[in-house]
């Protein structure tokens, strides 16, 4: 198991290098260092000297991938790519183009993201599984068909409508919760209710439908028939037999997301004014802050890979048949 994890981690390195290479290429086709300097320096009186200065100060005065002037290995190391991405591997994210320390920002913004994403995730799974279990119990009846249709209908509504609708009704018309915002002084949860609610409701359609399929697949297995032949009641079949087995595919789909919860949700966070990593990303995209985007891509990839490893580990926990080697 330990060897397995170490191997997976080693395997992650070329992937992360690939990720970095890709983001670098993309971003420097979009944005030359001169552009970055110009847009960061503001709109008035940008002199070429100021741009050169900025580039030197932020380390963009070198060639991108290969430095023909340097000799030997430094041809590859004395470049923007090497200098900027090697540090990422040490989780030293450097400073954003506007001069903020990214590591600090990420570390502080991670928690609000998690505060929204984690309850959404947990409550979402719980609600989806409950709903799906209920529907599975009535498989083949009109109730089931109606519910599936409802799921599909819920799925077909754009996320934006859920957010806009939720804000409009719950916060603006009914004044039940603050429309947006976040602060940690006092009642944090009142800011979380609406985003979590919106997140959960928006996810019910797709989630419950998916779980229903998984449960049905399990319900057709032989061991369910065995359990029935034993005299188990429908309820206990559902909870004792189908659910634990369905956990295996559920885990595949779900565990991989857990680390990514730190990344938060782009839409929810920006609509509800949650100062998390999701809105951080959105701002970075909008202001073309390469350092932040690069960092977030890197973190996202790391978390994803981490999620994959976690998925494998959770398999061993959910499925006794699986052994990692």
């Amino acid at each position: 198991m330990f060897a397995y994890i170490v191997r997976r981690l080693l395997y992650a390195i070329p992937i992360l290098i690939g990720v970095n290479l890709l983001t670098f290429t993309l971003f420097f086709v979009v944005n030359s260092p001169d552009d970055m300097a110009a847009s960061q320096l503001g709109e008035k009186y940008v002199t070429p000297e100021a741009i050169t200065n900025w580039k030197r100060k932020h380390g963009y005065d070198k060639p991108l991938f290969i430095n023909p002037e340097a000799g030997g290995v430094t041809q590859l190391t004395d470049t923007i790519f090497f200098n900027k991405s090697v540090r990422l591997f040490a989780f030293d994210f450097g400073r954003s183009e506007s001069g903020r320390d990214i590591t600090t920002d990420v570390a502080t913004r991670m928690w609000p993201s998690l505060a929204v994403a984690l309850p959404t995730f947990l409550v979402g799974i719980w609600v989806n599984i409950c709903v799906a279990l209920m529907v599975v119990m009535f498989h083949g009846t009109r109730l089931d068909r109606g519910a599936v249709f409802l799921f599909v209908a819920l799925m077909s509504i754009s996320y934006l409508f859920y957010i806009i609708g939720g804000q409009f009704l719950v916060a603006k018309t009914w004044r039940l919760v603050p429309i947006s915002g976040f602060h940690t002084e006092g009642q944090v949860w009142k800011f979380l209710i609406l985003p979590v609610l919106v997140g959960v409701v928006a996810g019910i359609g797709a989630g419950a439908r998916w779980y229903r399929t998984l449960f049905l697949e399990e319900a057709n297995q032989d061991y369910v028939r065995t359990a029935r032949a034993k005299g188990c009641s429908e309820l206990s079949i559902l909870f004792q037999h189908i659910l634990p087995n369905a956990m295996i595919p559920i885990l595949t789909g779900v565990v991989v997301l857990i680390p990514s919860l730190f990344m938060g949700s782009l839409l929810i966070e920006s609509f509800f004014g949650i100062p998390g990593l999701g809105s951080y990303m959105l701002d970075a995209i909008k202001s073309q802050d390469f350092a932040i985007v690069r960092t977030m891509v890197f973190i996202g990839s790391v978390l994803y890979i981490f999620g994959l490893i976690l998925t494998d580990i959770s398999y061993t926990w959910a499925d006794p048949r699986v052994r990692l080697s």
Partner: protein
Amino acid sequence: MTEHENKPPGSLCMQVQDLTVVAAESGETIVNAVSFELKAGHIFALVGESGSGKSVTSLAAMRLLPDALKIRAGSVTMDGQDLFALSEANMQAVRGRRVAMIFQNAMTALNPVQTVGRQVAETLKLHTRLRGKALRERVITLFTEVGIPDPGQRFDFFPHQLSGGQQQRVMIAMALACEPDVLIADEPTTALDVTIQEQVLNLIMNLTRSRQLAVLLITHDMGVVKYAADEVAVMYRGELIERATVDDFFHNPQQAYSKRLIDALPDLRHFREAAAQRPLLELDNVKVHFPIRKGLLQRVVDHTRAVDGVSLKIGRGETFALVGESGSGKSTLGRAILNLEDIVGGEVRFEGNAIQNIGRKAMLPYRKKIQVIFQNPFSSMNPRMAVGDIIAEGMISLDLGLSESEREQTITALLERVQLTAGHARRYPHEFSGGQLQRVAIARALAVNPELIICDEPTSALDVSIRAEVLELLGQLQREFGVSYLFITHDLSIVPTLAHQVGVMQHGKLVEQGTAEQILTAPQHPYTRALLASVPRLD
């Protein structure tokens, strides 16, 4: 241990009357007015081929039918109580308590994520007041009773950690836990290797006697019936066509269909003579290994020796039967001869030329000469190609130099030779039955005029009544074209009608080989003897 009141031997435990089951949507009748009785201490066998409705009958008796099927009429009575009139809630108290069931494939019928002990305990928890330590002890006693070694430890094992035979024993333990009156065993031995089959049957028979169970044994295997049952009923297309005691049935079958079933049993008295001398294919110490990787860098630490030094010779026009249980490496050997598997040691000589591990191009001339028929005809035909195209494929790619019309003629001839018609060429695989498809597979192999055909369990996916036809066809073709067969099978019973030579494989090694007669009449190796002992026979 609770005291169990055994019913007097022969008393009526369950009566099924006029049971009729239909498909819920189409209304098609699946089981038609089936009636029988189960008596204490008796094993009642329900025989039929797949799709005859025997499993549906048993499920209907338990009210476990899938949603797609509905009980139309009839009744199941136990102790004067009509099971069909019970509410679902009351029915739950009957299942497992008074009627228990064993299923065909214990691997899938057991919950893979629960320990076997808990699964057995669950039955007890549902129907008795046993809890805690007493419960565990009861389960361990049951395990001991059904012959699971080291039951205390096995309690906490997961199903996949047990062997197939042990899994089936767990199933039996689970069924017997609450001491039911009736046991329904649905193909309890089909998924097991032959050597284990016998042990499980013995167990069921012993328990029937000791506990005075009424057993409904559902099987397609006449050998099993002959070995275990007291009474037998034959189902054909949803109806019970014949019912008799076992002795009557085997000596004096009434229906033509019943006769066919009985005829499928092996005859171990007539053998084929050794045919040719000049070897066509020679294997010399052939080894196929699969690497086992471990550790941080996935270094190869060891190999699975799938085929570990096999040597044999097949002559022209000769059939060599390679017998062994699943996992013995016999199929791997077949694939290795076909150059579909890398050979790590030894030599394969075809007509004296070494052909192991030669390139794709170099292999092409031999591909015409060595052909193959696979076990499952459904998966060995591309469902998206017409049968004619499937047969033509080899002719085209091996460039037999035929024009299109010549090809079509050949295909027609081949199809007719395997007892199909020219019109079948335009049909697609799913429109054929298994037996027909296997004939197409034979035609495909014959299309390139091979000298050797490797038959990898060609009949094991077929029903017994069809099996004989296919084997007969293979035999005819050998006489006609003089082809050699390497016949890979786990079923010793079909060997006598077909094979000149027999080799027995175990753990990648050929433990014994010789003429069919030698092997079947005077086996030397204990493994061969065990295999042979488990073959049911008519005598």
